[in-house]
């Protein structure tokens, strides 16, 4: 399954946010990829995630495949829409 998401926290996918992101993706058995600006990276790699330089208001696509894909997708949508727990 795949889904388009938008980064709505001001700081973008910065250090703490990307740490949280991979912490979540690594909990799941499914294969997870992120595509942004025509580059696709493994969403379990913090280095891959960081190399995309996703900023505030950027839209990216997430691809998940595996036995726990729906749970994984739900948690990812939640953390992104909750601005990674940041105030703005």
């Amino acid at each position, binding site marked *: 399954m795949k889904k388009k998401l938008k980064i709505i926290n*001001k*700081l*973008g996918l*910065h*250090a*703490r946010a*990307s*740490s949280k992101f*991979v912490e979540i993706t690594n909990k799941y058995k499914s294969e997870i990829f992120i595509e942004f*600006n025509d580059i696709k990276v*493994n969403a379990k*790699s*913090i*280095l*891959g995630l*960081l*190399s*995309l*330089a996703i*900023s*505030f208001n950027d839209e990216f696509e997430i691809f998940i495949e595996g036995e726990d894909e729906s749970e994984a997708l739900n948690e990812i949508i939640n953390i992104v829409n909750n601005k990674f727990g940041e105030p703005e």
Partner: protein
Amino acid sequence: MSITKKGIAVSPGFAEGNVVLINQARTIVDKKKIKKNKIYFEINRLQKAVEDSIQEISELKKSSNYKLKSEHIDILDFNILILEDEILASEVIQKIKKELINAEWALNSVLTEKSKNYSKVKDIYMQERLADFYYIGERIIKNLRGNSDNILELSKKSILVAHDLSPVDALKYCKNKNVIGLLMDLGGATTHTAIIAKSLSVPAIMSLGDISQVLQPGKKVYMDSYKGIVAWQLKKDEKDEILKLKDEYNLIEENLLELSKLPSRTKDGLEILIKANIEITSELSSAIRYGAQGIGMYRTEFLYTTNERFPTEDEQFEDYKKLFNNNGFDSVTIRTLDIGGDKNFLHKDEINPAMGLRGIRYSLTNTNTFIEQVKAIFRVCIDANKKIRILLPMVSVLDEIIEAKSIIEDLGNQAGANGLFEIGVVIETPSAAIMSKEISEIVDFISIGTNDLVQYILAADRNNEELRPILNYYQPAVIRIIKYIVKKVKRGTYISICGEMANDILSLPLFIALKINELSMNCHSIPIIKSVINELDHNECKIAFDKCLQMRKSDDINAILKQLINQKIKKAKSIIKYEI
């Protein structure tokens, strides 16, 4: 198609070489080919360095000595996360295997590749992430080298590219013979780093914006730091063009050496001594090469800042002694410690260090440091049996001069150095300028410190690029204050000019009109200035200067000086080839 970028040329020259990127940690990475049978050795080194790095950060986290805030712990965890990322290790290992290169280089290229998207991002928060990549790279490379600080094994002619470089690091790197050029994102002509590059005759261009992000390590670049242009990816004809320029520049250098032999006398016979400002004693050879008539100012800070501690009296003695080593200079001026401003190794938290505890103010509150320095100077006077001028920086009130003088004279008596020294002060604060008459009555000579005087008179920070329109030598207030000082001092007071204005061609007529005794400048500027003096005439300068004094705007003064210089200066102009 070639790519060019223009910045501010701060140290003239021409260079072609390969890019060596210095990241914020100021680590230099060199590309080395490895033999096939060394691949696993190189991979092991990498893995061990990554493990060591993880270990270090974990220990930092655990260590009870550190009361870490949660955001700091987040940063440490983030670093560990990156280090543990399998993609990092596997891509670096791939590169080592495929390209047969050293781990340092492979790591640097992977991190550069991973961070390249950040240079396109406008968002300032995101740009800061670039620093994270640097820190990671820095830590691993440090461990790859087994913590050794020996980072300057450059095997070929290299052009250093950095976001910003401190004066101390610039000195450390530029002393390496294989460093033939310097390119920086930040900085300008009056920064200390620029002065260092100039003094070591290393071509340098600053304020290039994002040069440290667009140039890849190892890339061949051409730099023309007469015009401030960097170029790369040149086609054959473009390369020929630029190499032709290089020949022209070499000719300029030859001509300069010819000019350096000129007497520094105007057409109508007014003599002005041209001396060298130096930061380190290794510059003495350039001072001789370019025809300096003495050392007008030896800035002594470097002995302090390179070691980040106070040098002992013996260390200072050994260093100052070199000033007289077989170079025939009879006249040497040593400026006592002027830490503070942008050269503050004490890292003291002063909100406004340019107006803080610096120069003589520091010396008088830390008299032990001052006494050791003066003692070292006297030992050299006696050892070489030569006279030394002691120059006190940043004086603002008479009391300071009286107090410093009494310390120096007492030490002189004790050392038996009477008659071997003179005491002078730098006039660089507005208050000292106003008090110049009274000051001249109690000192042996004065030196007008133009860099600081200009910034204090105009209340404009010289490191602030946005203040450029205000901050120039041709402001009526600047030339009037210099005239005021010269007219107020006791008759016969020996006056020198130091600071960058001393080697500004357009300002020369002013100094000639005022019959300044000495101009002290970076070595490289000496020949051109000598040549310009030779083509000027004191009377003409006097007329132009009087006209300048009537003006209300810097543009008008600039225009008068430009007209005079462009009319009179044929030889120097034909040599330096650019419009003044």
